[in-house]
């Protein structure tokens, strides 16, 4: 086991030395790494309000007048009213599974959700509605962002990746070497 790790590290080092630091497929690694957490594809269509919730893993921010929209990685978007800095209000949470980025124009929110671009009417922050969806237009990342090391390869038949968690891997075949 230890030998294998050393071997792969050495291999990684070699790859780096020769200037081709990139994602490589290799066989079988046992040990600590990352594995994807999936949501069933059917659930991606379930875009709706959920009660306001705490921030767990943030992302993109967008300020529209006094409303602050804040991405919750893979899960949705928080909305805060920050008009009064001392008394901000956690107004709403939009459930958008597998979201990684978004933007707001007037009363419409555009976001990615796995392979789709979704369009959401947010004119009523408490009753949002999907108005359109362009399917299979986005190529989602199939590896953990900002990570180097082994991970369990994404199995697209298992659903959409909404998160990457630390895990003890068995026979992991994917690795990122940057």
């Amino acid at each position, binding site marked *: 086991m230890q030998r294998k790790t050393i071997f792969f590290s050495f291999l990684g080092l070699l790859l780096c030395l020769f200037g081709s630091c990139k994602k490589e497929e290799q066989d079988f690694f046992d040990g600590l790494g990352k594995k994807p957490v999936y949501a069933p594809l059917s659930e991606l269509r379930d875009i709706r309000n959920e009660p306001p919730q705490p921030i767990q893993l943030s992302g993109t*921010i967008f300020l529209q007048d006094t409303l602050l929209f804040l991405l919750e990685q893979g899960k949705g978007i928080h909305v805060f009213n*920050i008009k009064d800095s*001392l008394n901000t209000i*956690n107004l709403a949470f939009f459930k958008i599974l597998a979201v990684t980025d978004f933007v707001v124009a007037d009363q*419409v929110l555009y976001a990615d959700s796995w392979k789709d671009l979704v*369009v959401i009417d947010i004119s009523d922050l408490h009753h949002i509605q999907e108005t*359109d969806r362009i399917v299979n237009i986005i190529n989602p990342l199939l590896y953990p962002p900002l990570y*180097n090391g082994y991970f369990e390869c994404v199995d697209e038949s298992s659903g959409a990746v909404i998160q990457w968690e630390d895990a003890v891997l068995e026979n992991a075949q994917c690795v990122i070497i940057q």
Partner: protein
Amino acid sequence: MKKILFATCIALFLFACSKDSALEQVAGKSGSITRFAIYHDFMYVLNLNEVQTYNIKQKEHPVLVHRLPTDYGLETIAIYDNTVFLGSTTALYILDISDPAGPVIQSKSDRITDIGFSGCDPVAVKDHFAYSTIKVIENICGTISAQSALVVYDIADKSAPKVVGFYTLEIPNGLAYKDNYLFVCDEGWDQLLVFDITTPTMLTQTNYSFSITDPYDLIVDGTRMIVVTKTDFQIFDISNIAQIKKIAQISK
């Protein structure tokens, strides 16, 4: 006569103000780390190795009208002065959007050629200068590849940007400026760094920088600065840069 003139001035002033605030309210502001941007009736979306242009005249029903192929690794988009700036893992792209429905690559500054290494991350643009952070995360290559940095480009000629400044950082994330001060999130040092950019070719790091855990990105909102970290956001009063004050820290 004087009165009429005065009244006209006031009216013009009010008109100008209301117009401005209306515009601002509609537009809104992104942080620096995003792959989506709106420009008039168009939306640009970065998709790994292409820039997608959507016509959003009918806001609720966008139509994909153009796909611009690029190298892999597109990460951030910023629009300044009718120009698109893309940060990718290997280059800074400048796109001409005089025809917003069909962006054209005006230049691509290869980071390996310019500064000897590549990395990711966002861009902020002010006047003729682009400020870009480049992050190289700790990895197997860590010991043999280079470090993270803030890079300043002279973009007076958008078809041929020149590197005019280079400042080593730890793990930089988002950035934004107010007047002559540039704020940079550095997750590695757990700092919000404040640079004086009065002379863009020669930045100085001020001693107004302050500690903050895991800063990710920020938005300057008048005399306020909103900084998002991994697990919360914080609001700072920046009306006096020499005395930046934390007003709020919100996680739920």
